[in-house]
């Protein structure tokens, strides 16, 4: 029931923000709701897997439990960041009720995606996250953000349209196989005819293309750098650290439907999408001088690594999940830190920022550590995740992909370091007097950092078991 409360709670609080007396305390309500959601998420994560309930529409399996325990604390961290921003910049308080209502709707819908056992509900919840996020990207008085919001909405509408088309094709596939069409995931898992015919293959291809667009994979990735760059940093963190993982869970669930009977069905397609995404992002990282765009391109790079890991399946699955979970925390750290830096320097141009460790010690430290984790250095979870994916590439004989992967990762490393390191260690270019950074404002990012190190050094048995269960469901026979 705690998992159901994760959907209904934020949704009801969001509706409650219509009451005038409540609106004045919107920021506190956001933090309070996010805190309760985090606690409930951990209760769900520690509870055993349940059979589908509520007429089969809700199911809390290992995948739900793992990702509930990842996205809710990240949302809490983002809400503390927002609270701190409003406390230090009172002019932001005016727009808070609207922001909080949409952010909580976004959270409720994200949690709904994770526990849904019906493809239409999954789709509806994912679409709701998109509709809640689109207005949040717009910053008043910044026309480019309006364009970015439109492009995000357009690409997401098309992507989710393709996913819906894929779902309809899957139903037709089951129908063509002589079974009664169903949209319940647990029932589809037991229908062996899924994808043995053209409808099934077409459905899978459309769903992968649609969800690939939501994840920022090539060929339809162009919305992502623009939306991530133009959105307020808190919203970028919502998109990059939460919505990305929610869309990925949908992809994992769909792949799980096909893997048992057809372990190599979309291997080539996923490897190709992953490699092309890595090439595109590497070139863009080399070219950009915009801090937020750089992290956005790194997100595309990560999506590429994830697609490659998912394409291989089997031994890569565990590493893939470590990589995915680590990246959620990395993106949250980096986007929130980028927000803090931009709020002080009033620019995203990396050439205008230098000496962060002296100027803004907390932000400098988080940017440094976040970049190390982003580049896949030890002792972070991303390092082990990437290592396991690489090892699986060699083990499965994909040596060309392995070589290309290594070259692209090295190029990304050099390009990112060249841009970010002078920001951290260079000499400050201007003399600034900043308001003192409080420990409280750094607390969420410290927690994310702690989680990243834990994933790299010592994974608690309970988390390890959960990751293994999810990996087993992804890897197929």
């Amino acid at each position, binding site marked *: 029931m705690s998992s159901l409360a994760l959907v209904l709670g934020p949704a009801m609080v969001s509706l409650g923000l219509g009451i005038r007396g409540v609106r004045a305390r919107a920021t506190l309500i956001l933090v309070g709701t996010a805190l309760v959601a985090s606690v409930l998420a951990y209760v769900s994560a520690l509870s055993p897997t349940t059979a589908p309930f509520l007429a089969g529409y809700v199911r809390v399996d290992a995948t739900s439990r793992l990702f509930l325990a990842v996205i809710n604390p990240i949302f809490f961290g983002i809400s503390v960041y927002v609270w701190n921003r409003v406390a230090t910049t009172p002019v932001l308080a005016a727009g808070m009720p609207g922001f909080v209502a949409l952010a909580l709707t976004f959270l409720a819908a994200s949690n709904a995606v994770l526990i849904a056992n019906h493809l239409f509900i999954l789709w509806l919840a994912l*679409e*709701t996250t998109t509709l809640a996020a*689109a207005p949040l990207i717009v910053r008043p008085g910044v026309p480019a953000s309006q364009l970015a919001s439109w492009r995000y909405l*357009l690409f997401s509408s098309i992507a989710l349209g393709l996913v819906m088309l894929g779902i309809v094709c899957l139903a037709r596939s089951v129908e063509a196989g002589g079974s009664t069409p169903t949209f319940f995931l647990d029932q589809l898992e037991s229908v062996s005819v899924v994808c043995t015919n053209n409808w099934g293959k077409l459905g899978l291809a459309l769903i992968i293309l649609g969800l690939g667009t939501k994840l920022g994979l090539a060929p339809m990735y162009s919305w992502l750098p623009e939306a991530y760059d133009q959105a307020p940093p808190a919203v970028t963190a919502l998109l990059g650290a939460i919505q990305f993982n929610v869309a990925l869970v949908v992809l994992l669930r769909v792949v799980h439907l096909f893997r048992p009977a057809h372990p190599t069905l979309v291997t080539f397609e996923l490897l190709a999408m992953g490699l092309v995404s890595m090439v595109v992002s590497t070139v863009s990282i080399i070219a950009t*001088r915009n801090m937020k765009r750089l992290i956005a391109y790194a997100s595309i790079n990560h999506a590429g690594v994830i697609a490659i890991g998912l394409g291989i399946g089997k031994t890569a699955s565990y590493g893939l999940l470590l990589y995915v979970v680590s990246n959620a925390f990395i993106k949250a750290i980096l986007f929130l830190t980028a927000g803090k830096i931009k709020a002080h320097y009033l620019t995203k141009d990396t050439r205008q920022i230098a000496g962060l460790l002296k100027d803004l010690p907390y932000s400098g430290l988080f940017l440094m550590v976040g970049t190390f984790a982003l580049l896949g250095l030890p002792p972070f979870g991303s390092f082990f995740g990437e290592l396991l994916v690489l090892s699986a590439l060699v083990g499965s004989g994909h040596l060309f992909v392995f070589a290309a992967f290594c070259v692209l990762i090295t190029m990304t490393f050099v390009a990112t370091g060249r841009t970010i390191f002078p920001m951290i260690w260079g000499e400050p270019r201007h003399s600034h007097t900043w308001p003192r950074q409080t420990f409280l404002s750094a607390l969420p990012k410290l927690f994310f950092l702690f989680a990243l190190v834990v994933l790299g050094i010592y994974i608690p048995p309970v988390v390890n078991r959960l990751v293994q269960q999810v990996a087993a469901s992804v890897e197929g026979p």
Partner: protein
Amino acid sequence: MSPLLVALLGVLLVPLFVATWRTSLIGLGFQGVLMALIARQLESTPHTVGGWLALVEFGVVRAFVAPLALYSVLRARKTPGRNDVIPPNLLSWTLALGMVLMSFSFAELLVVDSGGQQTLVAVAATGVLLGFLVLATQSDPFSQMVGALRIENAIALLELGGKPHGGPVAIQFALLVVFVTTIAFFRWHLVNAVSVRVTEADQGGGVEGPTL
């Protein structure tokens, strides 16, 4: 069903060659009306709540609400009548017609028995491909909205042709609400699109005010 599907195919093609924004919106409206009629023919139990909801979705929301929501903005703005949904050249027209042929060949692969189902799949595939053609060739928000709505309609048509899945009316209603909300967002963006002038400062590292 076939005469309705042939009419739907015509409604998909004509606005590509008659390049005004009014024709595009009328085309979308007719798509909704024709899909409502097809739904009426296909629905074995038309007097269920789900059946009526489907008629409302196609006959009211897709046929009138969506086109009128966009029409009111363009009319208030006194937008010039001319609006190319695809570039007005021989290559685009050939591509559009080629896509129709391709869709019919594609439908033969998916549905072995020729007849109503095969035609329905072919028309739905045509709708999706022509929607993508519009999206691929246009950068103006209105044309992109038309492209997106064409794809949405084609998906709804394909869904219509399948066996009823017996899902609860609540899900059907929620899908309708999401569609209406999407239209509302489209309208909102269309209203604001006119004021969008991207400056260099917005694109690069210019100075900006406080933000979350």
